[in-house]
């Protein structure tokens, strides 16, 4: 079972740097998710590993052997592109058998292997159908079966669920992971859906403009995002600008807009430094009244909107200092609910606030606002 290692890989297309000094290691048997927005270089990354694109510089090791000059057909990787690229002139069975027959396996044996794959992906009954007769979900399973049937044991999936309905996506993502794990494959699954990445990935690598921002297991990426971009892209958060006014050995005080003061846990910034505070939507509480002793991090504001989202309710609250805060209360937790234009207090849990240095290019660029 292969491991993959990329060392200092770069690739430019005309004037655009698609991949920029990228290092990455994928362990044997791991299901790695590469998470990033459109245009961050995810597809190029997969194609470089597959051997379909030659990097301008850097090395690619597959199973600890230098693979830079190994052609795609000998790298033992199966590439599943975003729109599947199913062979329209071949039947479902023939599509799956393409890999084995290309490697020299006889038709009978190839068909046997393929039928097994089709059974595993619940497509056995459609073995003789043409790809365009299958539904979106079935086509996806066929693309997967075709990749799994080949001799490869490294699976490269480019947004495998991107073309599917939201509901089917939710169902299939568990199935893909199960199937891959069952066969003992190593997989690199590229996506822009952070919820999907957190659910299926053993580890997540966050990609931005051709560079890896952070690689770690899902809880660590979510709870300890190392940059504003990661905090915003994975899970979303409230971002408040301010500067440090005071520090002690237990935490610090940060002055926000219009003199609101927030308490944060211990940080590495000195008084006067400009910072950005990040707090997740669910790490907030909303109350009607505030008792005398509870004043730390309770900010008054007015509810702008309330949306029922199913397993939670999302509130937009305009604080009295001008900052807009999103608060998400899980269903069943909130004793009462709040309506539009109601006055409330929002508490930002001090132990959950992450403090970042104010970015050079400005906060909006960092968040890649649309």
């Amino acid at each position, binding site marked *: 079972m292969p491991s993959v290692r990329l060392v200092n890989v770069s690739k430019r297309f005309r004037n655009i740097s698609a991949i920029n000094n990228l290092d990455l290691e994928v362990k044997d048997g791991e299901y790695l998710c590469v998470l990033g*927005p*459109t245009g961050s270089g995810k597809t190029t990354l997969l194609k470089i590993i597959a051997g379909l694109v030659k990097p301008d510089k850097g090395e690619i090791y597959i199973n600890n052997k230098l693979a830079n000059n190994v052609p795609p057909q000998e790298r033992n990787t199966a590439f599943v592109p975003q729109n599947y690229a199913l062979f329209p002139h071949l039947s479902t069975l023939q599509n799956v058998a393409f890999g084995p027959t290309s490697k020299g396996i006889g038709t009978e044996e190839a068909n046997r292997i393929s039928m097994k794959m089709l059974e595993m992906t619940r497509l056995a009954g459609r073995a003789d159908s043409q790809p365009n007769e299958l*539904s*979106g*979900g079935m086509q996806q399973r066929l693309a997967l079966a075709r990749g799994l049937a080949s001799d490869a044991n490294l699976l490269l999936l480019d947004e495998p669920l991107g073309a599917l*309905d*939201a*509901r*089917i996506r*939710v*169902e299939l993502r*568990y199935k893909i992971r199960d199937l891959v794990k069952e066969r003992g494959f190593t997989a690199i699954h590229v996506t*822009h*859906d*952070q*919820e999907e990445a*957190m*659910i299926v990935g053993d580890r997540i690598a966050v990609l931005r403009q051709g560079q890896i921002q952070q690689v770690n297991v*899902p*809880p660590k990426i*979510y709870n300890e995002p190392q940059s504003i971009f990661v905090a915003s*892209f*994975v*899970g*979303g958060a409230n971002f408040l600008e301010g500067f440090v006014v005071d520090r002690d050995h237990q935490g610090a005080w940060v002055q926000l807009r219009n003199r609101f003061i927030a308490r944060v846990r211990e940080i590495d910034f000195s008084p006067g430094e400009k910072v950005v505070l990040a707090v*997740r*939507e*669910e790490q907030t509480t909303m109350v009607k009244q505030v008792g005398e002793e509870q004043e730390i991090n309770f900010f008054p504001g007015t509810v702008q909107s309330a*949306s*029922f*989202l*199913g*397993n*939670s309710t*999302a509130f937009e609250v305009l604080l009295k200092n001008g900052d807009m805060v999103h608060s*998400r209360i*899980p*269903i*069943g*937790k909130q004793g009462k609910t709040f309506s539009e234009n109601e006055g409330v207090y929002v508490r930002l849990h001090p132990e959950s606030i992450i403090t970042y240095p104010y970015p050079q290019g400005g906060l909006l660029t960092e968040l890649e*606002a*649309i």
Partner: protein
Amino acid sequence: MPSVRLANITMKYRDIIAVENVSLAVEDKEYVCIIGPSGCGKTTLIKCVSGIIQPTNGEIIIDGKLVNDVPIQDRGVGYVFQDIALFPHMNVYENVSYGPFVKGWSPPRIRTLVEEMLNMMVLGDRARDRPNVLSGGAQQKTAIARALASGSLLLLLDEPLGSLDIRVRKLLRHEIRRMIKDLGLTAIHVTHDQEEAMAVADRIVVMKTGKIVEVGTPSQLYLQPKELFTANFVGETNFFEGHVAREGNEKTRVNADGSFLYSSEKAPSKDTKIVAAIRPEFVIMEHQHKAEPTWKGTIETVAFMGSMMRYEVKIENGKAIVVKTPFSSTSQELEVGTRVYLKFPPEFVLLYQYPQSGLEKEISVE
């Protein structure tokens, strides 16, 4: 300000019935979402409203007037396309001004309106750009501005966020709703993403294979879905096939394959075979056994979903129950293999008649 009424709309293509006898009323200034799996007929339906398609049967009434014979260009209905469809040979300004332009407005008058639109959409500095250099989100905002600038008071949105990244989708959907509400428009928004619909709609229409399954507000559909399909399509649900064991005054006792559940609802019909359902967020999962009746199980999978944890718990008869809980400090102790005890509060257990076509077919989303 238009209301829309669809009366008995049917659309047939040779042997395929895309829409079957659908009737729907949308109030003035209402934001309605139509959701359903691919091929359920939702796009066909709004194409009928806009005039792009002529229904085989039925009437379309906009603002009290029958519009079946009125051509697209005279219906005054704005349309936002799934593949955005900005005119590639025109820049942002020319695209957005197209509506007033074809009406023969004078250039100064056009400029005032378009600049206002672009400012509202925060596109002011992209006015001279061609669509192909804009990001997906900016393109879709331009398309919406274009539809709004044409002066339509009824806006139809056909999977408007479908071609965008998930993160951009979440940000843009709120902006769209706010814009529509601020301008006092009526909107019908079609999507396959139920989470999107929940976030923006006043009311949601659920469709499947050409027919309306259920209509309700987001919280109605989530907390009290009247149909099994809705329960499965909008969010996740655990389903139990079973029989009514005893009907009590306050609770109904259900026998699901040997284990027992209680529901505050009355049995749905005389047949004893039923389906019980409960959402994963309402299942109570405990580490220690307490006195009340509980189901024993072992955690099979653990998925971290950011603010929530999703567990699949295998119970004695082999079935897997999905449980979702907010992430907390105790979440560390619940790993794969941990023994747990599940409780199903009766007020959250919903009862349904067992469907004729079988449970799997009834709830299937493909």
